[in-house]
């Protein structure tokens, strides 16, 4: 036989119970916030940006392809490597021919450059 003693008068009444819960939750706020911020890992941040980044890249690609398709690059006649590198014209021939310029070549090229 179990002769329990009624100790329910010792229980927290509803008002004190709610106050205690409120006090605990108020004090727990900072730690809960800290835990929430820890939850945001770098990989998670990156993964959140994958889709927008891919979408932006796709838009840029579409625009570029459209522009290139409509306006093909204009090439000037005689436009060569020397023009691209901003070196005297004869240097183009030396580079393409894979030969070293002679002193004469250099003097001629300099003379043309002055003109």
């Amino acid at each position, binding site marked *: 036989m*179990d002769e329990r003693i*009624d100790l329910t008068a010792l*229980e927290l009444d509803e008002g004190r119970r709610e106050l*205690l819960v409120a006090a*605990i939750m108020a*004090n*727990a706020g900072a730690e809960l916030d800290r*835990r929430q911020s*820890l939850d945001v890992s770098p990989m998670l941040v990156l993964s959140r940006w994958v889709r927008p980044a891919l979408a932006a890249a796709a838009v840029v690609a579409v625009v570029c392809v459209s522009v290139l398709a409509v306006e093909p690059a204009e090439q000037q006649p005689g436009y060569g490597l020397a023009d691209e590198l901003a070196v005297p014209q004869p240097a183009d021939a030396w580079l393409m021919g894979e030969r070293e310029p002679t002193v004469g070549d250099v003097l001629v090229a300099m003379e043309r450059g002055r003109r």
Partner: protein
Amino acid sequence: MTPETDARLVALAREGERAAFEKLVRRHLDTAYAVALAELADPKDAEDAVQDAFITALERLDDCRDPSAFGAWLRQIVRNRARTVRRREKLRQTEQLETAVVGASGASPARDFERSQLRTRLEQALGTLTTTQRTVVLMHDLEGYRHREIAAELGIPEGTVRSHLFFARRTLRDRLGDVIEEQTDGRTD
């Protein structure tokens, strides 16, 4: 709908989910309070200890190796916290818990007064028990724990629990006379 398990709530609280932690608080508050009251024999100190213990538990939630046994783990923190409170000088900050809300149970003033008187006498009587006797009688008669559960939690033999319960009840009856209402409900464990 089945209630969420402690393990699930602990997992969510670890991620900082407020609602999950509040559910844990509400689920374990009464037992935590009973444990603290057993250690301190003072309701206000017990409330402080419970409050501190829940915050400590939240801060150390990652140390809870078995989240399904969160209750037992929490009660150990409550016990340790209560012992610290008991040791230190009582620099109480009564704060808002001391205010007029006390006793606002929704019952009539006469009933509140009666309950308050009974509560005071019970607290005084409990104060004459040893800490272990208080723990055993509160866990068993107030929170409904079984002998073997209390034995496991306190790390003492089941027979010792029964002995503590017997002497605790006898002391309370001697102190309180016919004030306490005995319940002979035939429950055994």
